[in-house]
């Protein structure tokens, strides 16, 4: 690995994971040590039973049906983006360990084809969603509401997705090559396999990882803490 690869795809990955995990834990701890609102802030109607309230909390957080009614376009973009991001995350787990049962069903070629289609679709959906958000925030009537943080996050996401799509559609390397790199990361001896070192694709990977590292490091200090905070705030809506 050259110094840039080592920085982005080696040591940077560890730093990003430590900051992300520690930062999110710190944020959750910070919230938990702040006293709850003493007054009741629920919205009505709300379910009367505990399980009912929990069910509504899940629906509100994962589907936000009332938001869909008033702003369908952005909510469709948000839902598709989050689902695609989840699919991409699950797909990346293949680099940690091959999805053996799926390979047994689909075969090696079938698995690669499935990964190519699903990963490609996820990458395109995320790209379209990020571009939509960027356009909405830049040219929408409420652009004055936006702050530099909003653009930084979108820029990082755009970088991640563009480079990820490049790896998916242009890179020409198969999962096994990345699995070797991931194995080195998990052994705390980060190194690129020869196939990656000798390919120009490694530059795309390095830039992909640079954006990923920066995104993960910034995440706990950004509005993206809604990933955990939304559960708490939506619980207030149906609370006692």
């Amino acid at each position, binding site marked *: 690995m050259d110094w840039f690869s080592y920085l982005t795809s080696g040591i940077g990955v560890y730093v990003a994971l430590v900051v992300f995990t520690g930062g999110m834990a710190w944020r959750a701890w910070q919230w938990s040590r702040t006293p709850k*609102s*003493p007054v009741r802030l629920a919205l009505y109607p709300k379910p009367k039973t505990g399980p009912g309230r929990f069910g509504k909390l899940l629906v509100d957080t994962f589907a936000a049906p009332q938001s869909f*009614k008033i702003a369908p376009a*952005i909510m469709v973009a948000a839902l598709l983006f989050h689902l695609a991001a989840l699919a991409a995350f699950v797909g990346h787990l293949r680099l940690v360990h091959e999805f053996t049962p799926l390979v047994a069903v689909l075969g090696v070629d079938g698995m690669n084809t499935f990964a190519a289609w699903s990963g490609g679709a996820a990458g395109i959906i995320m790209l379209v969603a990020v571009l939509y958000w960027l356009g909405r925030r830049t040219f929408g009537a409420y652009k004055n509401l936006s702050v530099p943080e909003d653009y930084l996050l979108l820029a990082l996401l755009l970088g991640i997705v563009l480079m990820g799509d490049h790896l998916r559609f242009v890179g020409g390397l198969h999962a096994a090559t990345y699995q070797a790199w991931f194995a080195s990361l998990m052994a705390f001896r980060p190194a690129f396999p020869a196939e990656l070192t000798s390919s120009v694709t490694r530059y795309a990977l390095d830039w992909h990882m640079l954006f990923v590292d920066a995104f993960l490091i910034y995440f706990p200090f950004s509005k993206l803490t809604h990933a955990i905070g939304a559960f708490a705030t939506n619980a207030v*809506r149906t609370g006692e």
Partner: protein
Amino acid sequence: MEKQTIDSMVGVLDARMNRQLKQYMDICARCAICKDACHQYVATQDMKYLPARRAELLRQIYRRYFTKAGQFLPALYEAREPDENLMDELYESTYACTGCRRCTYYCPFSIDTGWITSVSKGVLIAAGRGNEMLGQLADAALFKADNMDVFDEIIVNGFKDVVRELEEELGRPVAIPVDKQGADILYVALAGSHSIKPAAVIFDAAGASWTLSKFEAANYGFFFGDPAKAKLIADRFMNEAKRLGVKEVVITECGHAYRVAEMFYEAWAKEKMPFKVRHILEVIDEYIKDGRITVDPKGIAEKVTYHDPCQIGRNGGIYEQPRDIMHAIAPDFVDMTPNRETQWCCGGGGGIVAMEEFNDVRLKSGGKKVEQIKATGAKLLACPCENCRLQIEELSKVHDLGLRIVPVMELVAEALR
């Protein structure tokens, strides 16, 4: 701004900080989904009335003084020290907010902009920028409580005048008990006989054990944005209820007064009250269903519609009782669309009807409510909130709607057999 003023503002924000507020400050995505939920933004398209912007103004101070990230990279978060420009915008966007929480309903994270603006009001007060009119009205209520030896006789004589008026209207004796030890109900009305007379007739018909509070339900300390004053104002009738040993406090048709008494007071007082709090419409609905009062099912022959006040509907959960009452007395009752939790705010809440400087935005923001009322075709509107009534009466004049707007209990009193 002077350092002492800023310290005072930051101190208030620190004192009002709780988990929910911190999360609201931290997680808003500024997606602006709330823009189509707010009657003021929909009517004006003015950024300062966008709910997320109202919150963002307080967030700028929060970021600057309560987050390391905001202190380290203020430009990234637009964290800023408060200055006169910020305070001007904060004042306008905050005191204009009616606290209807329709934006909260539609927000994917349920961010409570109404709660955020209540904290912003505290920050404004600390900076000497609280609304003067609301502050004076709150102080007047407290002055009355502090000088009851002067006011007591005047109040009781006023109630005697109401009894005389009522007896003339009904042609029979009616009692309005005051200071009745051991009564079941302490009824807390508004200033003026309109909220006393129909309730007295209904309580009388039901044979209820009740007594009338010497204090009005309205709470300008709540509108002003000072929870300490709001508590002191509510203390007046809550202490009266304790002294008289009543079983329940019944709040008249006043949205915010019900929410203060039912949702906030125990938390402010840090004690469990020895009585329950109910809205008068809950009590009347129960009287009808239990057969304690008999109403004429065709008592209100005219086509009538109903307005859901935000503070008892979306924020209080009272949706069905008033509708059940209306169905019991008015065969031609028609609901507005949308209604219940998605109904539009009339534009008159949060104390805005008392602040002349917001008259323009207040009247413009009632446009959605006007459309809703027109669509029903009704000329009679049942409205269980004083601020909503004042607003809709003015909207009716401006838009030539020719509406008669009355409390629900007045219609019930009319329909009593």
